[in-house]
């Protein structure tokens, strides 16, 4: 699935390029370029999902950052 996502992303790029070649009118141009970026974002989403670590148990997480040695936020 990750490769499918990565293949969709160039399609969005070519859609954006096609927009500036095909549409002289600025509003249409901008709208189709936005569509191209949206396609890329969908491809990125698919690629991210394809790289997610499989989970078998409880899905709840606590976000923890802080500094080593200190008491982390949870």
């Amino acid at each position, binding site marked *: 699935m990750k490769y499918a996502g990565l293949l969709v*992303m*160039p399609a969005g790029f070519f859609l954006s*390029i096609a927009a500036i070649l095909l549409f002289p009118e600025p509003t249409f141009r901008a709208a189709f370029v936005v569509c191209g970026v949206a396609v*890329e974002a969908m491809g990125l989403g698919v690629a991210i999902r394809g790289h997610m670590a499989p989970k078998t148990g409880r899905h709840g997480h606590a976000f923890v*950052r802080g500094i080593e040695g200190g008491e982390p936020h949870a």
Partner: protein
Amino acid sequence: MIAFSAPPLGEVSLALALPLLLLASLAIAGVALVNAGLGRSRSAAQSILGSLAMISIAVIVFALVGATIADGAAGPGHVFHFSGKPWNWAGTGPIALNGLALSPMRSQLALLFEFLALALAVLIPWGSGADRWRLSAGIASAAVLAALVFPFVSHWIWGGGWLAQLGLNFSLGSGFLDVGGAATVHVLGGFSALAVVWIAGPRRGKFPKEGLSTAMPGHNAVYILFGCLIALVGWLAWNMAGALLWLGAAPSALPSTAINTLLSAAAALAATFTVTRIRFGKPDASLCANGWLAGLVTSSACASLVSPPTAIFTGLVAGIAMPLLVEFLELAVSIDDPSGAVSVHAAGGLWGLIAAGIFAPQPGQFTAQLIGVATLLGLVLPLIYLLFALLNRVVPFRVDPDGERIGMDLHELGGGAYPEFVVHRDDSYH
């Protein structure tokens, strides 16, 4: 076809650009310190040595190979024609910087800017691969970026390539604008970081099969926060030098660029401070540092193009979004990014580039910026991933489990950064 005509620079601008570029290297030092601090203590020496080694290899490869492609001043460049428009996709500079000393000072300064930009770009993924990315693989990836990715992106944007000429060929504002390297440095580096964390995978024990994700906090808040202060000096100089070289800004416009840079970072820090204070009860030092850097990254795109209130706004947005994105990437999509480079550099850079389009006065500038973003997302990210995935087959990215257990310092260098301390037990290894 004529060679790319760079903005003309006066004597004062040329005289200012050189010291600004020398100061800009402090941004690199700051990011290297932040990377080291956000990694674990048993990988700190490898982190700093790796930064130096990656920079060394990257600049040598760029001098020998990449500068030829990136060059925009020496000739008309490689151009193909499609749909009646010229598409300048690569430069035709001299091989191995031949005749550099005889080239105009402006060209030499632009080249120095590109060297520094490359040095910073290759450091960004290094922090994301902390504690498991092998030194040799990091160096090899820096060479790949310097030879095959950065030169093209740099030429397209700074060397009169097709993105820079969007204004001329398609009446899209002033073409794609990236004055301080938000695209060329930060988005490229952030996407490299994403590719590295995908290919190398999370640190062992970070995402157990069941239960909560494991906390693996950075080891030195002083490195992280002092790195941010050093980075500020570098960024101020960086954005001013970029405004001179790529925008042709007058010296009188430089103070406002510096003020916008500072405002953007300050607003981002204030926003992250507030968000983490609300979410965790106390402000988180490492996330606040990331917020500060996200504000600086955002300013790279738009500090010389927007007004001070807009700089504050762009910084605020970056500072609010960054900690939420770090949390989302870690918890929702299992991305183990110790330095937060994907959120700080990739997302911050993309936001800055889009904001530069939203707030620019020229018609069509927003579309030009979006096409730049589309190129980075749709072309550059898949290319980096493909190149890194191939490289991983030749030089495996991930250290073996024993190396990860004892730490990268002992495993790769034979000694730790803090030899007087005993390496403590880590609960993530059983």
